């Protein structure tokens, strides 16, 4: 397990317009060290904590994310083991965290993968203020949802 990287400048996402073949969407705001620490610690009673691993260069975790063309992953017996890229975005961390919540609530036994991802993205959009999602990242999530149609 490694420490989160220092907060860096957001990466630029291509300017407006639809998603073209071969392009990928990524949110702007980086995951802060504070957010990752909070997820590691869990709630006040230590519940709902997450194990977080950063996919370092040459690691199997990074090779896995690349093979899946993914930026983050939730796994483990209760989907509380998160694998993140070293430049993980806040929204990616929130999404993987929420997959664990979906599992705990029993939702994943009733949804296929795509439904689970749509469900979690809609949740983030509905609760964007609570989750502190910026308008720019909200727009990226909205465009991600558009790719499922």
């Amino acid at each position, binding site marked *: 397990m490694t420490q989160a990287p220092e907060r860096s400048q957001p990466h630029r996402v291509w300017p407006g317009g639809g998603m073209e073949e071969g392009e*990928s969407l990524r949110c702007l705001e980086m995951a802060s060290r504070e957010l990752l620490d909070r997820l590691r610690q869990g709630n006040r009673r230590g519940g709902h904590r997450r194990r977080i691993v950063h996919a370092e260069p040459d690691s*199997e975790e990074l090779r*896995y994310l690349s*093979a899946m*063309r993914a930026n*983050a992953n939730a796994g483990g017996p209760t989907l509380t083991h998160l694998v993140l890229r070293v430049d993980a975005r806040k929204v990616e961390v929130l999404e993987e965290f929420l997959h664990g919540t979906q599992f705990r609530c029993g939702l*994943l036994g009733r949804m296929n993968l795509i439904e*689970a991802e749509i469900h979690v993205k809609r949740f983030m959009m509905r609760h964007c203020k609570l989750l502190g999602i910026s308008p720019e990242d909200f727009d990226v999530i909205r465009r991600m949802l558009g790719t499922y149609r």
Partner: protein
Amino acid sequence: MNDRAEMTFRMAVVDVFKFSDGRTVFVGKIDSGEDAILLPGKCELSVGDLTTEIDIQPEMLSHVQQIDDRLRAVATSNNLSLPNNVSSGQITLRGRMRMRGHRDLVGIESPPREFVPDRMTLGPRLPEGWDGDSWTSPDESSCYLRAWNKATATYAIGRGNRYDEARAVLLDEIARGGRPVEISVRSAV
């Protein structure tokens, strides 16, 4: 078979990963489509001619960059030592799965027991206010389309040997207003 019935998935493994926390992750394609929900538990791992049983965890969920041509991934914490000279194409997993969807809906006729969800169509395109799903016989020689309208509490069924036949029957019944949803309750003392 009801909507919670378990079936078997088969994954042709294209790559294997050994995570730093000890998990072995199998990535591959399954032959049951995107509506298959892979279930955790006992799973048969075949490597060439060798077969063993492993415990797999719930399917891994990824924040993917592209959703097309999606690979599936399951992990095990079992201590595995795969032969070095084995290629990923020789590895297969067989485990429990469930198809997403509800075969039996309250007050609405259910598809024949042997029918399975039609993954190619998922649901017919329907008029405003109607939802539906699509089922097919295992040999794909018969289609069963079902649609329902919650606002008017009506439903319609379309059957046919071909999808377009069944769809035409379904849309015709919708145009005629459909059948009323009927819920009968019997009290027992």
